[in-house]
């Protein structure tokens, strides 16, 4: 089976080589059948990589420990769901996932554009196959997922317990889909520049893919934040970690692109800017992929050795050099059709939005790569921490949210005082009202949070006004009821109203972020049973200890051997708020040096946090039981010397009993965060808005829009 998998990879490499040759020859010589053949090789690559992926997946499900990746990341005691997902927890498996997703999304993109832009599509095919070939080559030469060891070991090392969480298993496929989708606009952009056809066509074709990339990447980032918050032991959702930043950067430039392309569609401006953004997004996506697996930067996710760093740096170098060359040499074709008429206009608002987003990207880029930069410049590696990032990103985020309220209502070309008054009165009133309410409610101590709340209120006011006016207009025209007018309004202009919903979602999300960062109570408590202590307005009491033993099944369904925890009671002002039961799971390790009993609990311990999530606040707690307590260690040592591996499980029972009878003092991490739920709700709203915007419009409307754009194109040609 491993042979079949590896053969698929080799065949994939050959297909890539052939496809690149056929596409390039086809477009240069004008022989369509070669371009067609090139496009079909992308489909063939997708097929062959699907087979390879299936082979690897089956190996995991069948516990085929001859495969090195299966032996190192799975085991017979790893629950089935996690065995299936362990495919991408290793370097080799994740490369295969990346290559497979790239081939699938590329096939879709090329299928949907099969009748148009033949020359651009041919170049894009070659570029996408180039990426595919790069990743397949990495697997063939450096990190083979189908490497085997014979005779096969009897048992594997098991999936790292830190990864045994459901969210962690959707997060990589979503994130990788986002990354791979970012390369499609890059390929088409480069193709358009290479073919010297930078008219509106290529932008329209890749718009949906840029949007899909943005959507998947955004969801992937949010899933990562949610996983970090609700399942990791530190209780935060964003730490400005290098890998988090690496995924955020292409998302920011992608957002900028989605806005500035509207300007190119409506006014034919910013062509150089748009094409540069597309190329930058794709390059940043590749850089993000590189960062996670190269180990150049210190990070929680420090995966991989230096062997993969060099090929990636070469690829990124080629991308950057190629992009700069293409844009500079084609700049004559990228001249704007119009100029900016006024600084107070929708074009300016969009430009400002782009500047802020690119500025944010620059700040994050600088901070993330600072260790490398400072080492290159000063010889001393230094790094900047979250306070530095917060200092610069918070003001920029405030401006961004404000702009997202201004953009939808301000007029194109030139906004006059009259229409400004008409557009901005209601939103400003909403914002001022919110300010007054907040100040009287006594939250004046956090000016940044108040500023964010007011900006968000401004957005609610402006978006609400847009929906209100749109529904009112439809009712005046067609006499429909309010719900029908609303759905009709959205159906006929999904892009616009979907976009408005996205803005609403972003405002909600930032309300959650501002509230949970500024008004959070966090503290560490050391508690013994019966003890209680005060944290701000809350009283936390250790009610009783808990201990669960199971070699195969535990409350969190993750396969831990022993789980020690506590039940704590949280109350406020005498009123019961929540009952939490955090625990720490201890897993088996493969190290015989720890002893027969020691090795049953000597593996990676994982914190199972307990959280009471509410609309207004989350109460969160994690526990660090004192497993090193002398009484418990005595049992472990006694078991190590007296029991054989088969009998060692008995000692675990004694450990649990001792812990329950004489629970030692435990360390608790306790956090109360207001409005965290709104971050996830905001994310869902953004996702919903994105789906609305990307959904194809009904064909009647499409024909009318197509006729209008054809007329515009004719006018443009006549003028040329």
């Amino acid at each position, binding site marked *: 089976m491993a042979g079949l998998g590896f053969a698929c990879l080799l065949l994939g490499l050959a297909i890539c080589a052939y496809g690149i040759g056929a596409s390039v020859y086809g477009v240069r010589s004008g022989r369509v059948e070669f371009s067609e053949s090139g496009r079909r090789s992308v489909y063939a690559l997708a097929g062959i990589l699907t087979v390879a992926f299936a082979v690897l997946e089956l190996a995991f499900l069948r516990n085929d420990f001859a495969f*090195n990746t299966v032996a*190192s*990341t799975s085991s017979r005691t790893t629950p089935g769901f996690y065995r299936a997902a362990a495919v991408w*927890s*290793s*370097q*080799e498996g*994740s490369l295969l996932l990346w290559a497979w997703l790239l081939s699938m999304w590329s096939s879709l993109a090329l299928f949907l554009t099969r009748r148009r832009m033949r020359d651009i599509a041919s170049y894009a095919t070659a570029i996408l196959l180039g990426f595919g070939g790069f990743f397949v080559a990495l697997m063939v030469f*450096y990190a083979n997922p189908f*490497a085997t*060891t014979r005779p096969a070991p009897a048992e594997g*090392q098991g999936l*790292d317990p*830190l990864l045994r969480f459901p969210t962690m298993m959707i997060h990589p496929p979503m994130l990788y889909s986002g990354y791979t989708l970012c390369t499609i606009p890059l390929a088409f952009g480069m193709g358009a520049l290479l073919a010297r056809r930078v008219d509106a066509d290529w932008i329209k074709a890749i718009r949906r893919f840029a949007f899909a990339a943005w959507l998947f990447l955004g969801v992937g980032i949010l899933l990562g934040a949610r996983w970090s918050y609700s399942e*990791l*032991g*530190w*209780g935060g959702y964003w730490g400005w970690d290098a890998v988090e930043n690496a995924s955020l950067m292409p998302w920011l430039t992608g957002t900028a692109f989605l806005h500035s392309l509207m300007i190119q569609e409506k006014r034919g401006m910013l062509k150089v800017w748009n094409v540069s953004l597309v190329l930058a997004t794709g390059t940043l996506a590749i850089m993000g992929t590189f960062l996670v*697996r190269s*180990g150049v930067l*210190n*990070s*929680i*996710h*420090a*995966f*991989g*050795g*230096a*062997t*993969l760093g060099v090929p990636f740096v070469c690829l990124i170098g080629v991308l950057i050099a190629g992009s700069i060359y293409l844009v500079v040499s084609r700049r004559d074709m990228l001249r704007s059709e119009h*100029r900016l008429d006024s600084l107070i206009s929708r074009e300016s608002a969009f430009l400002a939005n782009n*500047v802020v987003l690119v*500025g944010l990207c*620059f*700040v994050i880029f*600088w*901070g993330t790569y*600072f*260790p490398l930069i*400072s080492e290159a410049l*000063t010889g*001393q*590696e*230094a*790094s*900047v*921490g979250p306070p*530095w990032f917060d200092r610069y990103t918070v003001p920029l985020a405030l401006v961004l949210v404000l702009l997202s309220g201004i953009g939808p209502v301000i007029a194109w070309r030139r906004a006059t005082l009259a229409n400004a008054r008409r557009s901005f009165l209601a939103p400003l009133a909403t914002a001022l009202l919110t300010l007054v309410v907040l100040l009287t409610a006594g939250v004046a101590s956090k000016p940044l949070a108040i500023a964010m709340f007011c900006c968000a209120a401004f957005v609610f006011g402006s978006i609400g006004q847009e929906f209100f006016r749109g529904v009112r207009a439809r009712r005046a025209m067609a006499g429909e009821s309010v719900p029908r007018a609303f759905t009709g309004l959205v159906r006929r202009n999904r892009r616009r109203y979907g976009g408005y919903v996205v803005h609403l979602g972003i405002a909600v999300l930032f309300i959650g972020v501002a509230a949970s960062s500024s008004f959070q109570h966090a503290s*560490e408590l*050391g*508690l013994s049973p019966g003890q209680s202590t005060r944290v701000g307005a809350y009283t936390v009491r250790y009610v009783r200890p808990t201990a669960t033993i199971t070699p195969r099944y535990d409350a969190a369904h993750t396969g831990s051997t022993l789980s020690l925890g506590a039940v704590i009671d949280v109350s406020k002002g005498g009123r019961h708020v929540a009952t939490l039961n955090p625990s720490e799971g201890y897993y088996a390790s493969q190290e015989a040096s720890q002893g027969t009993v020691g090795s049953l609990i000597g593996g*990676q*311990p*994982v914190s199972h946090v307990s959280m009471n999530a509410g609309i207004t606040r989350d109460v969160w707690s994690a526990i*660090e039981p*004192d497993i090193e307590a002398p009484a418990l260690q005595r049992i472990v040592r006694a078991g190590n010397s007296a029991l054989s591996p088969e009998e060692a499980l008995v000692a675990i029972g004694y450990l649990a009993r001792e812990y329950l009878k004489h629970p030692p*003092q435990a*360390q608790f*991490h306790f956090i109360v965060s207001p409005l965290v739920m709104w971050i996830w709700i905001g994310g869902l709203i953004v996702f919903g808005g994105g789906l609305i915007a990307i959904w194809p419009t009904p064909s009647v409307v499409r024909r009318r829009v197509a006729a209008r754009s054809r007329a515009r194109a004719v006018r443009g040609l006549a003028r040329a």
Partner: protein
Amino acid sequence: MNPARKRTVRLTVALSAAVVLASALIYTSFSAASPALTPSQLTRQAQPGRSYQVTGTVAKGSVYRGGSGGAILYFSVEDRAGGTTIPLAYTGTVPDPFREGREVIVTVEKQGSSYIGERNSLITKCPSKYKTAPAGENQNA
């Protein structure tokens, strides 16, 4: 002023503002940064009052809790290759992978002759499963 000249002025102003802001950002990043040092470098270079990022492994047998309610975690960090060990006192979140022998990064400040860990600054590197070498070789994180 004709429109073309207005546009040039606008562009120049905008670009200058961007350059000034970027320079401010770059300048402050150097002073706000914590240099990354190994324990042996730290003992040689550390100045009181400045913060440094120490990277190394947790020394065996050096971990214990103290302070009121066990809030302070005491442990020692040694060079990856062995050698200098520095003891420090840390308060804040302790990541799950933390244990003896694991690689850690923690921001510390020298106070007198001891080192105090900055709150919540402890990062423990995941025992990496993303290895390109066969299992059993030293991890190269």
